[in-house]
């Protein structure tokens, strides 16, 4: 997500790219978590937040930082409104017209099966 925005807006130096890639890969090394799972974690995080507040998806930043042996996840999420959005963001093709708001919450992390707007 962040990668995408960097690629769209302004060229990044290769050293900045290297740093970002290393951060992510070291994080997944430390967590024994594959990089795509980290991306998925970000996407689901945004999805969960969106159920409660309306967030500005274009300005969300999610970073992982390491301080000595501890890892911290820093999320910077601009909130547009405190009310949950009534309708799903229409920018993505939804899963048809059927009422989909209730019973969509699932405990298991199978977000890819939803038409997750953040993917």
């Amino acid at each position: 997500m962040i990668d995408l925005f960097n690629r769209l807006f302004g060229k990044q130096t290769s050293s900045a790219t290297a740093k970002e890639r290393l951060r992510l890969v070291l994080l997944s090394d430390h967590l024994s978590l594959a990089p795509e799972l980290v991306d998925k974690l970000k996407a689901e995080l945004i999805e969960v937040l969106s159920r409660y507040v309306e967030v500005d998806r274009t300005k969300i930043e999610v970073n992982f930082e390491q301080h000595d042996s501890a890892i911290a996840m820093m999320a910077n999420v601009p909130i547009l409104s405190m009310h949950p959005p009534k309708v799903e963001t229409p920018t993505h093709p939804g899963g048809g017209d059927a009422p989909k708001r209730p019973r969509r919450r699932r405990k298991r992390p199978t977000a890819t099966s939803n038409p997750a707007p953040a993917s």
Partner: protein
Amino acid sequence: MTSGKGGVGKTTTTVNVGAALAKRGHRVILVDADIGLRNLDLVLGLEKRIVFDLVEVVEGRCQLKQALIKDKRFESLQILPAAQTRDKDSVTEEQFARVISDLAEMADFVLIDCPAGIERGFRNAIAGADEAIIVTTPEVSAIRDADRVIGKVSEKKLPVRLIINRIRPEMVRSGDMLSVDDVCEILSAELLGIIPDDEEVIDTTNRGEPIVLDPTKRLAIMYDKIARRIEGEIVPFSNLEARGFLDRLLGGLKAG
């Protein structure tokens, strides 16, 4: 002296840091822990003088002192060569640690040149160590491997310091190479030294001469600084090794 990845300059760094320490009057012993891939002797130009090796010491075929080779250019510099025709399984961690502790009684500093990788040879090499000096270059692969090694030596509770090798300041300035600060931040390790990329080191290695033999060489000054930091002196990082003000501030906060 360890790195995880091969080819980042571990042996050259070991030789030159060791020679710089010896030049400052310390008794230094360099140990080639890369059994089967002996190279420290060659980089230091002592390859013709080897009689016994580390494995023969462990197996009791010779005395430890017989296997040590004195570097005549430095007086107080000696090396313990690795075996070339044996493999890493010839020595156990306990045997290795015993040799290192025996050497420690004969020297002020024992520098162990670790093999690449994180397997048996690496575990042997760190078995008797008190501190890990990580050598890395500003490349993604070297840094990732360095991170892995830092994790391994931290499990052993060894303090870790970092030497960043082959920095090219002009590439850092143009954003084409990770900076010293970037590398320190990514690895969250204390910096021990910075060695710029320099063609001279190829020439001196070809000849089997440590670059610190010639004190006018740019790199000789850098290795000498590392030696002084190992002694405990606080040697500021020079302009070439420049760190930003903010980073120094953050570094100070981290340290404190």
